């Protein structure tokens, strides 16, 4: 997802200035350490949204300090947001760097796939440990949204760890098969019989 729809959604709540948008976005996605956006990215996106007529500059505030431009969503922006709500979001579970690394470690001399798995497992457990502690500290009375996001992370990490165990158990089997090969497509014009 681009930050674009998040900005539209936040502006649909009420007009805001750039700094406020950035802070609101980071709070929403579970903190800066989880998903950080540079101020430049917010402002570039706002400029593009303005060019497309989805957002408009409502006012400029200046109380002694630097000027703050206040942005608001336009009717076209609301329509764009509605169509976002009406569509699904893709997942990228099958596009997996670790999978590629593991398969190549099976095929490359000197690489140790078991070690590759161990390294990954240790990192996943460390992450699961951190998220578990964060979740324990969160207050369900006021931070339920954040807790649900952490729960999602926990479930995915758990699945990744179980999958790792499964792969480790079958590593010798998969090693006996060649790496997935490209399909051989005949070149040139198909021959007629």
């Amino acid at each position: 997802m681009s930050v674009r729809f998040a900005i539209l959604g936040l502006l649909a709540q009420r007009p805001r200035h750039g700094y406020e948008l950035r802070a609101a976005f980071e709070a929403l996605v579970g903190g800066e350490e989880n998903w950080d956006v540079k101020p430049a990215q917010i402002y570039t996106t706002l400029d593009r949204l303005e060019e497309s007529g989805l957002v408009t500059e409502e006012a400029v505030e200046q109380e002694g300090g630097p000027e703050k431009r206040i942005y608001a969503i336009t009717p076209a922006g609301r329509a764009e947001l509605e169509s976002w709500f009406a569509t699904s979001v893709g997942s990228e579970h099958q596009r997996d760097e670790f999978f590629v690394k593991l398969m190549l470690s099976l095929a490359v001399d000197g690489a140790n796939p078991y070690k590759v798995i161990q390294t990954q497992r240790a990192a996943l457990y460390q992450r699961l440990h951190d998220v578990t502690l964060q979740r324990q500290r969160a207050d369900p009375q006021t931070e339920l949204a954040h807790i649900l996001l952490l729960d999602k992370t926990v479930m995915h990490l758990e699945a990744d760890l179980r999958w790792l165990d499964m792969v480790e158990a079958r590593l010798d089997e998969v090693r006996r098969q060649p790496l997935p090969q490209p399909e051989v497509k005949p070149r040139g014009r198909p021959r007629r019989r």
Partner: protein
Amino acid sequence: MSVIRTENLTKIYGAGEAVVIALDHVNLRVEAGEFVAVMGPSGCGKSTLLHLIGGLDRPTEGRVLLDGTDIATLSDDRVTELRRRKVGFVFQFYNLIPVLSAVENAALPLTLDGVKPEEARRRAIEWLSRLGLGDRLSNRPDQLSGGQQQRVAIARALVAEPAIILADEPTGNLDSRASDEIAGLLKRISEEWGRAVLMVTHDPRIAAYADRIIFLKDGKVVDETRLDGKGSDEAGRVRAKIEVL
């Protein structure tokens, strides 16, 4: 000094063709204030390890040292005594006595050890209250949820103030919410109360509460990972406190 230490711990069942090596030269240490999880596929030797450390079974080879005492040098009676004073067990199915109340169940190890009933009761109530069961003292196990029953079992494990808690799949029979509660409690038991906690589990989510995870396969330690938590400073302080005591 490590509270739990094993040296080349080996357990072989059967003989001749039918020999099964359940545990194969396992060396591990658990310190006071440390929470360690043991993971591995079923039949990897996890439970055997726990039974040997708890003195419920004798090793074929190697030794177990609890607080520096080699349990192989002790008679069966002395092992039982050592276990009662130094080791608390937590099981998957709680193993509570159905006709006894929460307090009576939790007080049982003390009662069996000849502690006066008043004193046993007082100490059981103290632990049950710390574990959040202060308002369930006279309930029988069938009047408690699974998570609450397991908390009674944990109070029972702690009532004799053992240095070591051994937990065998403590969340194996609980839903995910109660599992998190119990895992969180085991973490507190190590962090706040300075016990050495060794837990066997097959659940990655529960293992992630630990300070360290040991992976067992075919009776051997195949991997080990230390989890650096933000709470590790706390554990360090507890350790320091215990050494002063």
